[in-house]
């Protein structure tokens, strides 16, 4: 037997070599930088907490105040309503945009161009003051004053929702385009109509691409609802603003509002994370670890013993 031949054959039949035990690379600078970051963070918190002109008492006084809670409730209503309009209309616009019908696609293009191109603030204001252009709506003898029909809350929902639809349309369109063309062909070859192909085959697969930016949009929307203050909608920001104007503790009240915005977006972030994980099933063989799992791994990685160095093949007398 030559040496080359004996190498692999002996290890194949023989025992598995001992598992590698090595000293991990030390990351000293990570510890140094972590200490520096902590130091700065502590300094920043200390400065804000002990600022002589801030009255933290006011902050805690209003943090759980009834008016603020009413504002939070309305903020959530605006967010949900505007996102529902945005998503539904966005899907319709995206499908129209990709339609072979030139009227449909031109209409969708124009909508997106217009609503993406003008400020949301102006759009909310426009719906709120629709009566200037259209004092009454109705047919024949039956007429209703526009101001009665469109309340401030509705103006905000319309303004936010119709604007969102333009952005959602582009997100949905990107999702639709990401689905392989062979899917459409296979469905067409089975005799499915364009709308059936879209609804049954393409959109369900586009969801994986659509979900992450939609979560992003929802978080963004939660804070953009504060623009409803131009229509005097008493949502969270408007409430904080009003109370601040009243007691001249403006900064403290904005801190109160920001605290709740931060808390709500945090909840949404966690929700988005798990929604994405859910839609990744079937596409990825193995799901990535959750932050909780990663954290645990980080904590225990330094102390965790390496896999025991027992040979996989039981050592028999023959090998000895």
């Amino acid at each position: 037997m030559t040496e080359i031949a004996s190498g692999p054959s002996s290890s194949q039949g023989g025992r598995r070599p001992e598992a590698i035990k090595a000293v991990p690379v030390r990351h000293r600078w990570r510890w140094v930088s972590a200490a520096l970051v902590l130091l700065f963070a502590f300094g920043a918190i200390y400065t804000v907490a002990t600022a002589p002109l801030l009255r933290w008492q006011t902050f805690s006084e209003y943090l759980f105040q009834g008016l603020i809670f009413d504002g939070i409730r309305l903020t959530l209503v605006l967010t949900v309503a505007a996102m529902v309009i945005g998503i539904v209309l966005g899907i319709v616009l995206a499908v129209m945009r990709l339609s072979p019908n030139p009227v449909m696609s031109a209409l969708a293009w124009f909508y997106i161009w217009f609503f993406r191109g003008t400020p949301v603030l102006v759009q909310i204001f426009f719906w709120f003051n629709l009566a200037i252009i259209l004092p009454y709506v109705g047919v024949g003898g039956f007429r209703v004053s526009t101001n009665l029909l469109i309340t401030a809350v509705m103006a905000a929902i319309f303004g936010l929702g119709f604007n969102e639809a333009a952005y959602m349309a582009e997100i949905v369109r990107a999702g639709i385009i990401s689905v392989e063309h062979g899917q459409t062909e296979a469905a067409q070859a089975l005799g499915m109509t364009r709308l059936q192909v879209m609804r049954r085959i393409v959109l369900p697969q586009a969801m994986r691409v659509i979900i992450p930016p939609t979560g992003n949009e929802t978080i963004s929307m939660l804070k953009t609802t504060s623009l409803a203050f131009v229509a005097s909608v008493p949502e969270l920001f408007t409430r904080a603003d009003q109370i601040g104007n009243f007691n001249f503790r403006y900064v403290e009240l904005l801190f109160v509002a920001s605290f709740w915005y931060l808390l709500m977006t945090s909840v949404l972030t966690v929700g988005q994370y798990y929604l994405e994980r859910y839609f990744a099933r079937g596409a990825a063989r193995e799901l990535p670890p959750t932050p909780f799992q990663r954290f645990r791994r980080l904590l225990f990685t330094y102390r965790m013993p390496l896999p025991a160095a027992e040979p996989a093949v039981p050592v028999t007398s023959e090998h000895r």
Partner: protein
Amino acid sequence: MAAGPMVKAEAVYKSFGRLEVLRGIDLEVAPREVMCVIGPSGSGKSTFLRCINHLEKIDAGRLYVDGELVGYTQRGDRLYELPDREVCRKRSEIGMVFQRFNLFPHMTALENVIEAPLHVKGEGRSAAAERGRKLLERVGLAEKMDAYPNQLSGGQQQRVAIARALAMQPKLMLFDEPTSALDPELVGEVLDVMRGLAADGMTMIVVTHEMGFAREAGDTLVFMDGGVIVEAGKPRDVLANPSHERTRLFLSKVL
């Protein structure tokens, strides 16, 4: 037999931009006939297949399936484009199997098979599922009804794709290089299913590189190159004694 041809092509032309892919295709496929189409890549064989169920529009000539024009109706000497609904209805009568399977990844094998019977034909769920199960049994996948495509091997996926096409009870089956994306060891199981279909009397047009299959299961063999049919005839004759130099050259490379 008195019945006319299942597929009839008369001087079919098709271009993509400036590139002329089909330059006058004439052929006839009789009911129950199995026609295999071979030729180098870019010869237009896949494009011709896709014209038959109107996934591509032809530019000139006439193409008939079961005596009816593909994609148009003729009144007098004028052609009228068919509305989408009609195009879809005609496509539903022609099964197609793709090189890359194109199964719907978000549906199980059975759901893939019953999707079109449910939503195109409007069959009842229990009846469709019953027939779907039988079809999956027929292609040897009784155990894999509830598996998702990414849990199946290439050969299994292609067999599901064949069952999916058969679920619409087509009068004609088109195969676009059905085994070209498969590992060599998986080719046989797909060809076995196709042989079974041929034996049952299905009309089939098969674009393929599997000369063995063409020889045994095919009634006719067509060699295409440069957008024209160079040679056609009984598979044994064409493969053993090609009458054109171009065919001889191609066969010498692939056999």
